């Protein structure tokens, strides 16, 4: 956590320092929303969920302020994965209802959309910890950042990441074949 964030975190939670929450929000909101987008694939939902993460922080701040950035990342990923899984269950029920024909779209767009949906289905099937790790890595997080955000031992991040990638590929290929 940067010195600036430390100062913010230190004062956040006291009523007279209401501005600190706003600063913290402005500092992290976009990053959290973009991270959530990777999971839910919808800008509106990503923004809504990101706001929920901060609302949760505002209502019930974590006891440990030393790892606030990690808390935000972890909470965002968990809430996003929960939403993804809930959507999965809902879409199963929706398959029981006949769908209207899809609107005409460029072929490439449909293919990309299908690729993303497949990746998200597999992420929803993985263990939360593995899905979180893969998403953070894809978002460009370093091993150090991953270890801080997910409260993992730095030395074991590589091993767990490799296992997560292997499981991701195995699940994917079992479901959709090799590509």
């Amino acid at each position: 956590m940067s010195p600036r964030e430390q100062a913010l975190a230190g004062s956040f939670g006291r009523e007279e320092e209401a501005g600190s929450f706003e600063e913290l929000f402005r500092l992290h909101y976009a990053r959290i929303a973009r991270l959530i987008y990777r999971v839910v694939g919808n800008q509106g939902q990503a923004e809504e969920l990101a706001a929920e993460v901060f609302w949760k922080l505002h209502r019930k701040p974590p006891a440990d302020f030393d790892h606030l950035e990690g808390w935000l990342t972890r909470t965002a990923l968990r809430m996003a994965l929960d939403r993804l899984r809930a959507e999965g269950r809902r879409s199963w029920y929706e398959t029981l209802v006949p769908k209207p024909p899809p609107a005409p779209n460029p072929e490439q767009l449909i293919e990309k959309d299908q690729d993303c949906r497949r990746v998200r289905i597999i992420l929803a099937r993985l263990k939360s910890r593995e899905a979180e790790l893969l998403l953070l890595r894809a978002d460009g997080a370093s091993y150090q950042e991953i270890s801080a955000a997910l409260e993992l031992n730095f030395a074991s991040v590589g091993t767990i990441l490799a296992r997560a990638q292997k499981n991701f590929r195995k699940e994917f290929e079992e479901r959709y074949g090799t590509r």
Partner: protein
Amino acid sequence: MALDNESDTGLWAGRQLEALAPPADWAPDSSKALHRIQHSSTATHSGWHTWAWRAGTVAVAAGVVLGVPQSRVAAQRACEYCLGKVARVYTAPVKVTSTRQLAPDFSLRDSDGRTMRLSDYRGKVVVLDFWATWCVPCKAEIPWFIDFQRNKQDKGFAVLGVSMDEDGWDVVKPFLTKFNVNYRVAMGNDQIAQLYGGLDGLPTTILIDREGRVAGVHVGVVDRKEFENAIEQLLQAPKS
């Protein structure tokens, strides 16, 4: 393409996940979101005002309903209908014997490091409870299970807990100590969840008869009395 090596798999996974990246030109609108949060915060602060209005409305409505005989009868019928529906959803009916399927056996490590096998409990009535320390409804049921275990174990009854906590024993063991849990608890995994149909939610509680068959499956909190009745019914059933 087969699984060649780790770096190959890493690159492959990276390529797939890259497709999820948000559009480069998308800038989440933090001002709008912040305004929404501040609005919610204000709404919460002025919550007493809203609640006063709600309470007043309910009081007036109740006065009207109870004051007019026809509406009182209609309200009574509506209440009975709703309670009947809720009871059907949340009570713990025991399946008739002919429809019971054998509960899948499993082997898991319990909090003492010993192997916990369901098949070891054949001949006993078992409550198999899938739960987690973060699950609030699960915590509501745990004191009942502690009582059941204490009062019914001599009759051939056992509670078996399966924790679905991802953080493992580090969070579960202190919880067991804190709540003086007196029955065996093992650490669950994805395999056992799949074995029992994927677990739609926590708590999921499986009632198992003396022959090791599933006599009832309940997702969410079940009324204690109904639960106890179901267990007694299974305990008193003639042994086959």
